């Protein structure tokens, strides 16, 4: 077990180093100049030259890479050219919003997805099953950015049921920053108004972002439930005369959970980066928007920082999933 863990961690570090190398050279071979892009067409040549020198962009690329690694070894992710701040500070500021959104989305996706999956499995082959699956497939087929726009139009603009873009109403002041997660911070501050407002703001983006997860979870739940419902012990439970509801929820669901749990981690990782489009539509100050503008302005340090963070989370999520799988399924052993 420990040997396995060590091996996995080593391999993950190797993979992440590879990711770093590729991202670095990919973002440096681009013909184009981040300084010129940021300063625009009118900055005098000498201002551009000055800045290039100041940021060390006039040095050969391998030299820049070595220097970046040196910084990294000291836990420094470098400075963003576009925000003129340490990348670490930027990540600390923008990442919590994405974590919060992705977490809400996964909660929505998992709870609703499991409900849909169970209903679908129990009613297998009947019209309810077809209808539920058809509707959820429609959800999966809509581009998130379009779904987001329509959701805003309907629930915010026409019906006025939900608040518009952003994390909080503008007049509600943000609770003091402790964790960076608005919901947690407002709980810590005991600020009920901010909490309610933040929750209301989260409904639409979480539903939109969680829609694809919902369908994925629903599928797996359905399949897994069907699998379990066909087993002998379920037939036995039924034969014992247990109520159908008890059979399904106590016996079947419990055993069907394994594959569901294992995919949640993977879905979560992909939600963290999949938030790019949702964040743009809902003016969500998260990592996705930071990454988009960093890539557009060729802000190397920022692109590297985001890539590194997401790659770390991906690897970690995969590891956790595998370990969890082992923990839940005693038949699997790692040598």
């Amino acid at each position: 077990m420990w040997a396995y863990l060590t091996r996995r961690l080593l391999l993950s570090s190797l993979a992440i180093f590879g990711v770093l190398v590729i991202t670095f050279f990919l973002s440096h071979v681009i013909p184009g100049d981040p300084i010129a892009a940021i300063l625009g067409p009118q900055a005098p040549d000498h201002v551009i030259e000055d800045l290039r020198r100041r940021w060390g962009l006039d040095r050969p690329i391998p030299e820049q890479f070595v220097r970046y690694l040196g910084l990294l070894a000291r836990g420094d992710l470098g400075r963003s050219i576009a925000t003129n701040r340490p990348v670490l500070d930027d990540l600390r500021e923008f990442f919590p919003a994405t974590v919060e959104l992705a977490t809400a989305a996964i909660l929505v996706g998992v709870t609703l997805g499991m409900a849909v999956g169970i209903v679908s499995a129990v009613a297998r082959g009947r019209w309810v099953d077809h209808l539920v699956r058809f509707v959820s497939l429609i959800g999966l087929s809509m581009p998130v950015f379009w779904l987001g726009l329509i959701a805003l139009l309907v629930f915010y603009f026409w019906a006025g049921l939900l608040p518009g873009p952003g994390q909080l109403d503008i007049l509600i002041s943000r609770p003091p920053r402790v964790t960076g997660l608005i919901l947690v911070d407002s709980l810590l501050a005991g600020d009920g108004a901010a909490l309610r407002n933040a929750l209301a703001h989260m409904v639409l983006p979480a539903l939109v972002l969680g829609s694809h997860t919902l369908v994925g979870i629903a599928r797996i739940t359905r399949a897994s439930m069907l699998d379990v419902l066909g087993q002998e012990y379920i037939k036995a439970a039924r034969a014992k005369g247990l109520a159908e509801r008890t059979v399904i929820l106590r016996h079947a669901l419990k055993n069907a959970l394994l594959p569901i749990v294992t995919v949640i981690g993977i879905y979560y990782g992909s939600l963290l980066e999949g938030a790019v489009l949702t964040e743009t539509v809902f003016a969500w100050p998260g990592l996705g928007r930071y990454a988009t503008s960093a890539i557009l302005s060729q802000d190397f340090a920022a692109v590297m920082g985001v890539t590194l963070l997401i790659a770390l989370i991906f690897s970690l999520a995969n590891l956790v999933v595998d370990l969890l799988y082992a923990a839940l399924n005693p038949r699997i052993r790692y040598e």
Partner: protein
Amino acid sequence: MTAGRRGLLWVGLLALVLGAAAGVAGAPRVPNTVLVMGGVISDAVSLDPAQAFEFTSVWAAAQIYDTLVDFNREFNRVVPELAESWTVSPDGRTYTFRLRRGVRFHSGNPVDARAVEFSLQRAMKLNLTPAFILTSFIARPEDVAAVGADTVRVTFKQTMPEILMGSVLANPVSSVVDPALVQRNATPTDPWANQWLSFNDAGSGPYKLRAWSKNVKIEFEAFDGYWRGAPRLRRVFYQEMPEPAAAMLALQRGDIDVATDLLPAQYKQLQGQPGIEVKTSPQFTVNYLAMNVGYEPFGKKEVRNAIKWALDYDALRRIFEDALDPSQTIVPPGMFAHLAERPYRRDVARARALLREAGYERGFRAELIVPVGPPLPDVAAKIKEDLAAVGIEVEVRQLRSADLLGIYRAQRHQLVIQRWGADYPDPDNLARAFASFDARQLAWRNQWDHPVKRTVEQAVAELNRSRREALYHEIQRVVLEEGPYAIYGSPLEQNAMRSNVKGLAASPLFALTDLIDAWKE
């Protein structure tokens, strides 16, 4: 357990719905003493006036800080701000400013001549992005000197007509910062407290910076001790709304009062809608198609003019949803010395005749580079169509700004679509860029070395306003008749706001006019 499981699902659902309902019930409208603006604020890098160079940060700095002088709304006269009055030496190079008495910073410290000297020298010594506006005209930091408790003398490198003086000293880079606060927050590695000032306020302007959370909002609070009296809007928020469709919905619902970064088509739709007003102002920006004189056909004046006669200016204007002033000269409308002549219109026969005269009756091929992002690719498509009609076959290549600028700066383009926004509201800025080869800007990039560059130097040193105007008219005519640019208009700055917002307007140089003059009914 059984019921519990299912119950859990429903509780989750219910919590979501309830949370939503609670949010709605508590949603207040924006009160009349508060202004909420929505737009793109993520461009801002630093609110330190010595570093601010983006739309949002420059505008924000202008609300927090005061400068010695200011411009009137039309940007064609210099008016007093921290300086009550000034005198100029006969050679037009030295200005002596007398400061307004009793003005205080937000901290309570007095604004005096030493603070002015400190601030301008600080900006020049820091030498960050916008510093060139100062250093292009003032040789050394010591040329800004306090010569008494309330008297400051600024010596320029060259003769400075008043508008040009204002262009330098009314620019936010010349803002006066509180020396005591700067010194208190200085560190050994950052002796000018640039990091601290990036996020904090050391100003004397009408608004105090309450908070700036990047990519979320900038929050201002009225400064009651402002020398012109307390501002009527007590709090102002500038909220990030990157998605224009969402910003428009918020404006229509009244959740924001002003939308600053909508698309031309949206302003068009909002015009005439009840409760909403679209304010339009000429902008000191010139949209142009440039021809590289170094590419053989464009070396001939006739070919360049054939292109100017081939374009369908009306159609181009429609691509901009009419938010384009059809000006054709390098000094944009609304600016001092603008020449209101528009000789060119689509005339295929004339264009063909000019090409024949130049020996290109069989046409030629050219590559047009254009930045991505609407509506420029549409403009490129239209230009391609127009030039095809006179026999010039254009191949359009869309490039990201970084790549395009690399090619343009290296003079490796043939045709390029670009725009030039004035750095300061004086025709010198545009004349220098478009007509002076030696300035190494647009004339240089397009390899157009014309003797009119001497007129540019003459005009900038001319102190007499009407003689100066005549010189700029001459420069504009030369560029119009011979220059390597087909100018197809000056974009209009537009802002949409609720109709109860008064005194706030689109501005030719910054996105909006100053907040101090605004109020809500």
